[in-house]
């Protein structure tokens, strides 16, 4: 056995212990521990990925030396390693990018709690990715829920408290359904480990016994995880939850948390039920239908918003719809597209949440479209980050979003019954995405008269004469003229950590968009060794 094979277990336990240690540390130290833990786990995940790519197969890792039907197992392959690596990178950049705002939004005495939640979130996400045991998955789903709730309520405003209780209610419903599903599965199959359970399920299918319980299990687990990941029509907690948390929390929640549950669902289909059985049950059609409905509804609601945060959050509803549509196609190609979209949406949405804060900060902390007008000139880097994110969401070539749309479109041809609906849904949703993102982008890049934020600045009156002067010299001059003032505002709004994060996110988006071929082939290999 190679030493690298221990790494999945190490990364889970490092993340969890750093959370435990942080409870007695000060905010600053907890932050350092958290960032170190995320870095270490990301590096370990990279090693796992490299190991699995080299050996070309997945391996199971026995926990506590109890053999298969009784013990607890971790299973790692290319797909797990890749997902853990990308989740780690997005997590790292979200935490680093939001450092300053976390400091501002969270009370000083509670700083360490925030980072405990981040650590627990990381460890539960990694456990959801690696575990091969259904009940372990349930326990970590609950840890994930509690950590997510903690992240939401950290800023302690009325909005975030109500968002947290709504999130808890919906999540508890989802966990309850997942738990009853796995209890039923344990009864019909006698197994909790995924691989032995699959053999038992295959026997049941051949026997023809317990068909209805099996259908109920698939339905209940799918609905439970769909509720938790915010699939339409269970999405109503999303806008408040993502919109009113601190930037890091929003980025992590929308970029990663819902994806962890989707990854678990994909694992459930592949490793427990078997893709063919899942495709034969009509549950997958229901997921397809609600995915498409979510794409439409999320985009339409996003168009109706006038608040940037809510618009980005509603766009998440639509993107989750894309992923479920891919799963619902019931083909290998659809699943690859869905998994690629998990990555691309994680990278893009986190970028949008982090860079949009830079724009709010130069607009007097306001988030409505009117106040943000011209803010991309006041904060160039954040504007560029938002532009890349928005274009990626719309599906601009060279960026991550384009590749996932391309994959969805090509995968549609493999399933003749759903082809037309998929293509129409993709086309309509792309147009809708373009409408709301480009409308905002045009606003962001519209030169304002003064070049600096006007509304809450009484001092602006004194510079009235200059203002008129600048106006005459045209837009380009105007933004230059506002240079010193807006430059310092941008510097205050963009601490160096955030600059690094935005630049790295942009690079990540470009990598996913330009070098998609190796990633897609890794996903294909990963899925092949997944079942």
């Amino acid at each position, binding site marked *: 056995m190679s030493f690298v094979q221990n790494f999945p277990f190490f990364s889970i336990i490092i993340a969890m212990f750093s959370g435990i240690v942080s409870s007695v540390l000060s905010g600053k130290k907890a932050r350092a521990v958290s960032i170190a833990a995320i870095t270490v786990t990301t590096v370990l995940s990279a090693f796992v990925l490299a190991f699995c790519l080299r050996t070309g197969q997945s391996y199971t890792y026995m926990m506590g030396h109890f053999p298969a039907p009784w013990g607890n197992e971790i299973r790692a392959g290319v797909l797990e390693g890749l997902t853990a690596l990308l989740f780690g990178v997005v997590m790292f950049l979200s935490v680093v990018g939001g450092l300053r705002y976390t400091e501002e939004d969270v009370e000083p005495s509670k700083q360490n709690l925030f980072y405990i939640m981040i650590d627990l979130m990381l460890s539960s996400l990694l456990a959801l990715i690696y575990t091969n045991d259904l009940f372990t998955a349930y*326990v970590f789903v*609950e840890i994930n829920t*509690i950590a997510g709730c903690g992240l939401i309520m950290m800023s302690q405003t009325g909005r975030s*408290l*109500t968002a947290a*209780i709504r999130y808890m209610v919906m999540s508890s419903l989802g966990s309850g*359904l997942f*738990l009853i599903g796995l*209890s039923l599965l344990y009864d019909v199959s006698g197994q909790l480990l995924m691989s032995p359970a699959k053999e038992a399920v295959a026997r049941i299918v051949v026997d023809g016994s317990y068909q209805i319980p099996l259908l109920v299990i698939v339905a209940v687990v799918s609905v439970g995880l769909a509720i938790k990941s915010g699939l339409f029509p269970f999405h109503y907690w999303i806008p408040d939850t993502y919109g009113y948390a601190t930037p890091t929390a929003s980025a992590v929640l929308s970029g990663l948390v819902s994806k962890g549950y989707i990854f678990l669902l994909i694992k459930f289909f592949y490793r427990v039920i078997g893709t063919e059985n899942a495709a034969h049950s009509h549950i997958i059609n229901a997921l397809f239908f609600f995915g498409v409905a979510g794409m439409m509804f999320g985009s339409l609601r996003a168009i109706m918003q006038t608040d940037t945060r809510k618009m980005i959050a509603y766009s998440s509803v639509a993107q989750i719809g894309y992923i479920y549509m891919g799963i619902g196609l019931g083909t290998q190609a659809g699943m690859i597209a869905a998994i690629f979209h998990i990555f691309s949406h994680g990278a893009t949405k986190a970028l949008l949440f982090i860079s949009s804060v830079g724009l709010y900060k130069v607009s007097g902390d306001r988030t409505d479209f009117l106040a943000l007008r011209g803010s991309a000139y006041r904060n160039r880097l954040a504007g560029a980050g938002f532009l890349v994110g928005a274009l990626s969401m719309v599906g601009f070539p060279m960026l991550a979003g384009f590749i996932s749309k391309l994959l969805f479109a090509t995968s549609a041809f493999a399933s003749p019954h759903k082809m037309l609906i998929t293509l129409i849904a993709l086309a309509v949703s792309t147009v809708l995405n373009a409408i709301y993102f480009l409308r905002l982008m045009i606003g962001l890049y519209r030169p304002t008269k003064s070049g600096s934020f006007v509304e809450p600045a009484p001092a602006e009156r004194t510079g009235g004469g200059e203002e008129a002067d600048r106006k005459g010299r045209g837009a380009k001059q105007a933004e230059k003229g506002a240079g010193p003032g807006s430059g310092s505002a941008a510097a205050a709004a963009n601490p160096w950590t955030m600059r690094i994060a935005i630049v790295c996110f942009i690079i990540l988006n470009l990598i996913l968009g330009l070098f998609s071929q190796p990633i897609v082939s890794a996903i294909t290999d990963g899925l092949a060794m997944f079942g």
Partner: protein
Amino acid sequence: MSPTLMLNLEEEVSMVLFGVGFTMLLLHRNLIKKIMGMNIMDTAIYLFLAAKGYIEGRGVPILTDGVQDASAYINPVPSGLVLTGIVVSVSTTALMLALTIRLYERYHSLDLDQILISMKMEEEEQL
């Protein structure tokens, strides 16, 4: 009445209780009753698991009088799951109750709709 109906009485009761708890958690406006609903839902699952793990005429799965034979004991796995599940549901309940206290202190109400209305009003005042 079909004979299997009486045979699986515990399972049926647990499914009914699950439905009751689920509906309460989903639809009730009162936060405390939502939390009660969540607990009923979780407990129903534990009843289901315990009923499934029980085998008539066998003992508790703790080694007694040196009897090593597995057929002397009931299935220990569901009991283990129930114990773990109880720990999880206690922590979720504690978190929900803490949130409810926060919300009550802030909005003086336990009614979720009322809380949402007061929250909107508070925000409008701030603007």
